[in-house]
């Protein structure tokens, strides 16, 4: 069984009123409600929303696949902007 400790925290009157009202309406103990809320909030802080996850596997259609393979086998000419960008940094290194 988990050990329990007492904490003391100052909260707004509005939050206190909502806590009291919810506990009254549901019959849930306020200590349980506070603990659930804290744990849910901390779990949410540690979660990266799915829209920010980067898919690692990428499938492309036939034409795009041909583009990718050409890039490996034929070593295309860099654009002037790319050449300038990489040379600027080569000079700085």
């Amino acid at each position: 069984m988990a050990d329990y400790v007492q904490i003391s925290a100052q909260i707004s009157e509005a939050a206190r009123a909502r806590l009291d009202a919810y506990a009254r309406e549901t019959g849930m103990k306020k200590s349980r409600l506070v603990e659930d809320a804290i744990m849910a909030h901390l779990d949410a802080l540690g979660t990266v929303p799915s829209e920010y996850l980067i898919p690692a596997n990428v499938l492309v259609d036939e034409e795009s696949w041909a583009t990718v393979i050409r890039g490996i086998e034929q070593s295309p000419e860099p654009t002037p902007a790319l050449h300038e960008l990489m040379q600027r940094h080569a000079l700085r290194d």
Partner: protein
Amino acid sequence: MPFAIRILERSDVRSGFSCGEPSLDTFLERHAWQNQQRHHLGVTYVAVDDASRRVVGYFTAAMAAIAPEACDRPVSPGHYSSVPALRIARLGVDRRVQGVGVGSELLCAALRIALDESDRVGCGGVLVDALPEAVGFYARYGFTPLAVTVGSSPARPRPVPMYLPLSAVRRAAE
């Protein structure tokens, strides 16, 4: 404005960053550190103002594998089944410093990482999830759109997947 590009550190000032795309701002402020330190699903590189440690631009990089959609077919000898790539999932520059070259500096840093990775573990190219308004920026450097059927970024607004072969980067760096 002097700035350094390096991996995000916890003490970097991320609040107040505003690049014009709210989802990129939110990611940097709330999720980039967890994504990197807790989940190890991507690494965020930041352009940081030397004096204030304020983040003025960033990109998040992760590894990806590009394959043809009909990859369930047997791969004949001498053919590729997939190509490893560096994926730039997000790149944003604070509005206060847009137009002074921070974006191209960040892109260059990403391309250098891809070159290093190609020497270490293999990397065939760079895939970027470009915001629609940034397609022209990437096209100048040779990125071309890819028709991705699976593995598109779920971000909104829907980004345009663009690809640059690393062989072109290597030639440009020689």
